[in-house]
C-alpha cells in the first residue's frame, strides 16, 4: 500500500465512504423487524458494503502493481 501522501487516493476515499454508508444502512435496518428492513439491508446495505470492499481490494491491486497507479490526486 503506497499511502505515503497526506491524502488518500480517490478510490480509497470512495471505498471508505461506501463502507460507512453500508454500515449505517445495516445499523438502521437492525432497528426494525420488518421485511423491508431485511430487503433494505440485503439490497442497499449489501451492495454498498460489497462495492466498497471490492473497490478497496481493487485499489490495493492497482497501487501495488508496478505499472499501475491509483488516482491519488
Amino acid at each position, binding site marked *: *500500500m503506497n*499511502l505515503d501522501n497526506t491524502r488518500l487516493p480517490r478510490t480509497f*476515499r470512495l471505498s471508505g465512504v461506501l463502507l460507512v454508508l453500508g454500515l449505517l444502512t445495516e445499523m438502521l435496518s*437492525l432497528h426494525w423487524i420488518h*421485511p423491508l428492513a431485511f430487503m433494505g439491508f440485503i439490497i442497499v446495505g449489501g451492495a454498498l458494503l460489497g462495492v466498497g470492499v471490492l473497490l*478497496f481490494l481493487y485499489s490495493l491491486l492497482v497501487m501495488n502493481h508496478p505499472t499501475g497507479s491509483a488516482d491519488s490526486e
Partner: protein
Amino acid sequence: MPGPLGILYVFLGSTIILLLAILAWPSVTVTRGGKILAFVGFFVLPVFCGVWGASEHFERSKRTAFCLSCHVMEPYGQSLHIDDANHIPAAHFQNHRIPVDEACYTCHTDYAMYGTIKVKLHGLRHVYVQYFGKAMQPIQLYEPFNNRECLHCHSGARSFENDIHTAMIDQLKSGQVSCVSSGCHDTVHDVVSLSKFKVWSPTE
C-alpha cells in the same frame, strides 16, 4: 451485559469511527501498523459486520413478529389466539408445542434439503406481491401442506403413537393421507370465521 445485537452495534459503531478517522487523518496509514489498521477497517471489519448482520437478519426473518408485520397476515396472527383446542395452529401456539417467537416459520418451513432457501425465496416473492402486486384472496399455500412438517416433531412422540396413527403411518409418510385435510385435523387458520370465536389472551 449487552446481548449479541448490542455487540454487533458496538462493532458497527467502532468500524464507522475507524473508517472516518482514517478518512480524516490519512497520514496514520504511512506506518506499517497504520496500513494494517487500514486493512482491518476497510476489509476485515466491514466483511465481519456484513456477515453478522446478514445472519441476524436471516434469524429475524423466522420471527412471528416479522411474518405478522404485513397487514395481510394479521388475521392469521389473530387465529393463533382462538380459544378452541380443535384449531390446530392455535392449540400449538397457546400450548407452546412450537416456539412462540417462531410460530409461523416452525410449521411453514420446509424440512427438506434446501428447504430453508426455498422458503426464503417464497418470502421474497411475498414481499414483491405485497408492494408491487396483489395478494391472493383468500391466501393459499403454494403447495398442499406436507405431512413431513407435522411428522418432523410428532413422529416418534408418545402422544402420536396411538392405534389410528400407527395403522396409517405409511400413508401419512407417503402423503397419501393428509394430516390437515383428510378430516382429522382440518381446522387450520379459519380466518373467515375469526369474529365468531372466543379469543384467548395470556395472563401475563
